[in-house]
């Protein structure tokens, strides 16, 4: 089985968010970048498939050279090969087009992406790839079992879950549940050493334009200080919620 895991290179969850260039670009200064958490759950699930059933794992990122340490980390965790499409990831449409064009040249049984990236939250890359390539698609995927060609999945729905089945090829948008946080792997020294020897291919981008553009970023207005209510005066809290905030 050939697996492709799409890796988004995102600021760590604790990063301070600031902007530069007249608030048109994310300020990467002093920011630690990581594998997008939703993608990392998927990468770990791919590793289990590789170890239990045998599979090869390629990882792919659309980005400039600054995302290579993130791809190397994926190799250190256990992926076999990395592909970087050399382009600024302009928007979700652009990234999905690039990955789809790459997949057309190299067939995969299973493509794993995250349900969304934690930076731009576009939540569209796996769905667009599914649409472009006309393959099965399940997002908010919390369980994935593959037995030969037969696939069983769980999907989170509002207020519960549903179970699905389908055949390969398939693309999923993964999230926590696929594996648990405690299952995530920290690369060991051996993995890091091996990762240096593994192939990291840099490919030229497919010629296409984006269909959205960020004109300006801004941060929320500073919040007014919290109104503290004494624990002995809960009537006042109810009064404020009813008459001031008007939410009761």
């Amino acid at each position: 089985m050939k697996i492709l895991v799409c890796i988004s290179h995102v600021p760590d969850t604790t990063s301070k968010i600031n902007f530069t260039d007249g608030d048109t670009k994310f300020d990467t200064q002093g920011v630690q970048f990581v594998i997008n958490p939703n993608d990392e759950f998927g990468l770990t699930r791919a590793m289990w498939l590789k170890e239990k059933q045998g599979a090869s794992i390629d990882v792919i990122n659309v980005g400039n050279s600054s995302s290579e340490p993130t791809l190397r980390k994926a190799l250190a965790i256990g992926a076999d090969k990395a592909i970087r499409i050399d382009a600024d990831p302009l928007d979700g449409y652009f990234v999905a087009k690039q990955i789809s064009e790459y997949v057309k040249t190299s067939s995969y049984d299973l493509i794993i992406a995250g349900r969304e990236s934690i930076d731009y939250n576009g939540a569209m890359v796996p769905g667009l790839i599914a649409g472009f390539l006309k393959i099965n698609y399940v997002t908010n995927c919390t369980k994935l079992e593959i037995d030969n060609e037969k696939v069983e999945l769980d999907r989170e729905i509002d207020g519960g879950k549903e179970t699905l089945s389908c055949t390969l090829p398939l693309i999923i948008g993964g999230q926590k549940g696929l594996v648990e946080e405690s299952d995530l792997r920290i690369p060991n020294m051996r993995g890091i050493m091996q990762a240096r020897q593994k192939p990291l291919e840099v490919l030229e981008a497919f010629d296409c334009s984006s269909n959205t553009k960020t004109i300006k970023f801004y941060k929320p207005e500073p919040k007014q200080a919290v109104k503290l209510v004494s624990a002995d005066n809960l009537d006042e809290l109810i009064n404020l919620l009813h008459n001031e905030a008007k939410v009761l």
Partner: protein
Amino acid sequence: MSVLTYIESSNGKIKKNSFELASYSCELAKLLNTDVVALTINSEDVNELSNYGITKIIKVNNDSLNKFKASTFADVISKAVNHTNSNYIVLSSSLDSKYLAPLLAAGINAAYVNNVIGLPSSLAPFTIKRTAFTNKAFSDSSINSDKTIIGLSSNSFGLIENSVQSEIEELNVEVQNSDLTVNSSEKVSGQISIADADIVVSAGRGMKGPENWNLIEDLAGTLGAATACSKPVSDMGWRPHSEHVGQTGKPVATNLYIAIGISGAIQHLAGINSSKIKVVINNDPEAPFFKAADYGVVGDAFDVVPRLNEKLKEFKAQNS
């Protein structure tokens, strides 16, 4: 050209979030100087939509659409888009709509923007405000495409009542099939889901153990609220994963979010930031959540929550 909004139903009944979608779509159509059309799939009673300015409703009723399947529903919507010659499609932020949106975008060659929180600030180029960085920032995005799909964040626009006459058209569509099958779906019955709730009562490690959650459930019951929890609580298995809200859990955009015994880690705050009013109950006055909250009570949850519940019951009895 028109504005088409897809109105979701559950068991034949229009979902509550639909009226916000209808209100938004009408206002968008006014700005664009065009018509608004609502599409319903297997909805029985659609009349309520005419209270929110929807002048035309397209009903698709077909037994093979009883179970939600993203690719099939996306295909039905794309047929309605062609039928009405729509350039703008407005979808909700439910998990189902977010699932089908990119499939629809690929199918009709549209741009897709989600997490939208307002009407366009400019029409040429079409520019719209969205949240980004998991609610830590906003962006103005401009769109360069003939067709645009807008994913509207829930509780970001509100309702605009406008009673009109609605024309109803029944549309027959051929339903496409795929080899992806939905075997079963389980919903936690008798409870309000976080996505549908106006009020969410959420609790963290401060509750000391799963055996104390009756306090949270009682309070939620009084308020008609959904229950939620912080990441450590779901990681320790005190509560199901489906209740975990935060950056890697569920996003919450509700009118009132009550956080009990949750310190307010940055990842948690990111997930709940879109909620309008945040109330924090915590015995640690230094808890970072107080900086992000609108109202706070410094106190022991085991003392405050039961008393608050009693007082809310009295309040509800007087105000109902």
